[in-house]
């Protein structure tokens, strides 16, 4: 049987998920190369510009790649004060606190909800999961205004919690976690129940360790959503010292470092790089976990 399968593989010459290089893959490399280069270009540009010294930023004609890299842009950025005397490091600190708190909270809240939707038995289970699935197509930007009114009513304006709480309602996260938990065999849970394990123990000791890839994916999605979020600060926070780095960066583009102010470009790129790098590093470390979660992302119509 194995030999037969091997022969058929070689008959088809190549296919999905090949184990090595084969000449038939060359066309794919040729088509992908320019597309990948195009996708990569703006990111290389951020790297390059972030390390450019002033004279290269002013150079005419402008040069894409940096020649004499320097850290000056980062130093300038971090020592910069916003118009209202808040140091940039404060924005950065806020972003880090808010992002970490969101990640921890959303991991617990979403996985607990997913556990109930996947493994518990109760009458409204199917209905509630269906509601969550419909909410996958929820477009937060569409209800900015009623959300604003509700947040104003609940007294969350100008509180640190407003950075965290709305983002915790993340239907995609619960959906992915639930789909992944469905793959944990029920026998494992039944065995634990016979041994007298409580729900909390089953959730904590059995389910969570078994769905680590989905938790990693959830962590990444929450990180991206929170770390990149500039809207919350713009809409719900009036106190400058409670705003986040992403917000500060969005004001850079509008005011001090607009496209015409060449000197600001370097700092803006340095800031964009600080925004982007943590995303990239976390994703590189967790990419195999993300891919195994995505195998279970299927949505039944």
């Amino acid at each position, binding site marked *: 049987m194995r030999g037969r*399968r091997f022969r058929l*593989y070689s008959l088809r010459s*190549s296919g999905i998920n*090949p*184990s*090595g290089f084969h000449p038939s*893959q060359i066309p794919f490399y040729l088509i*992908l190369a320019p597309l990948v280069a195009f*996708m990569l270009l*703006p*990111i290389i*540009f*951020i790297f390059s510009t972030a390390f450019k010294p002033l004279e290269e930023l002013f150079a*005419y*004609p*402008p040069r894409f790649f940096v020649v004499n890299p320097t850290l000056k842009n980062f130093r300038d950025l971090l020592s910069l004060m916003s118009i209202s005397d808040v140091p940039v490091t404060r924005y950065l600190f806020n972003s880090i606190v808010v992002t970490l708190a969101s990640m921890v909270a959303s991991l617990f*809240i979403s996985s*607990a*909800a997913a556990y109930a*939707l996947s493994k*518990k*038995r*109760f*009458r409204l289970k199917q209905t*509630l999961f269906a509601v*969550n699935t419909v909410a996958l*197509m929820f*477009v937060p*930007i*569409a*209800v*900015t*205004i*009623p*959300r604003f009114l*509700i947040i104003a009513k609940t007294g969350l304006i100008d509180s640190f919690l407003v950075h965290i709480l*709305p983002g915790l*309602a993340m239907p995609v996260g619960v959906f992915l976690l639930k789909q992944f938990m469905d793959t944990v065999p029920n026998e494992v849970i039944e065995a634990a129940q016979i041994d007298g394990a409580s729900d909390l123990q089953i*959730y904590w000791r059995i389910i969570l360790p078994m769905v680590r890839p989905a938790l990693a994916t959830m962590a990444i999605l929450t990180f991206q959503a929170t770390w990149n*979020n500039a809207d919350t600060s713009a809409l719900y926070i009036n106190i400058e010292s409670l705003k986040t780095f*992403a917000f500060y960066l*969005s004001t850079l*583009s*509008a005011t001090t470092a*607009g*496209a*015409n102010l*060449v000197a600001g470009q370097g700092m*803006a*790129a340095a*800031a964009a790089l600080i925004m*982007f790098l943590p995303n*990239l590093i976390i*994703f590189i470390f967790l990419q195999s976990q993300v891919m195994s979660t*995505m*195998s279970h*992302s*299927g*949505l039944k*119509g």
Partner: protein
Amino acid sequence: MKAMGNSFRAWLYREGNAYAFLAPYAILFILFIVVPVIAAVLLSFTYFDTIQFPQFIGLRNYITLLTQDDIFMKYVLPNTIEFAVIVGPGGYMLAFLLAWMLAQLPRLPRTILALILYSPSMTSSVTMAVVWQTLFSGDQNGYLNSYLLNLGLIQETIQWLQSPQYLMPIMIVVTLWSSMGVGFLAMLAGILDINPELYEAAAIDGMSSRWQEIFYITIPSMKPQMLFGAVMAIVGTFQAGAIGVALSGSNPTPQYAGQLIVNHIEDYGFLRYEMGYAAAISVVLLLMVLFFTRLANRLFRSEEER
């Protein structure tokens, strides 16, 4: 009374834990998703200027939107449709084709290329605006202008982000650039998970072309992932609406060239404080998303569900 207490206790014993696990998420879900949607629908039937209590005015907001809002009909709606059709289905098909091509490569190059294609979606559109403004800067110091001048393709500098004819194409390219997100990864995983024996069986049955394989094996075998990807593409498309304002630096965008429905909502909600009218536009947006998701549902409904 006692019986009721007992049955409640029995229910609590049976289902209480499940609701306890659900409760924190459910509360946030209701507060930040369900209530805002209901509030948007209710507000859409009122006149509300944020100072006085909302006044019920029936369907007048919708009637105004459809009959008197020239900007909506002349710019916002056509722009939104153009943007959504190219970025939505266009980006979706691109994501599938890229995922499919990546699946034909061995693991290491596939992982590296997938990472590169995915990485733009990790940037946030607001912060990237700074970078795009530098690249598309209108003076001769702008990178694009400088290169095109050098190559002799243009004679004088172009105000890329301020001219109505270029803003929309740039918005589309920029959004497509960052649209290879979660849906793209889901489709890649879906393609890789297809049982190779299906392809072998098809090869024995005489299926020879790659296109046949895609349409008769790959897509039907991964319908759930295709649907997930489609929903993500639709939501991402409408969510990306702020890009025009971010690029041009002004709402409304120059001559309304990049004005999308999301900007129209903000224009009325936060600049003119006509919250009722803005809510009506929000409801129209939500209905559009619902409509397109329904359409995707039709296309990729799994066989056994029919």
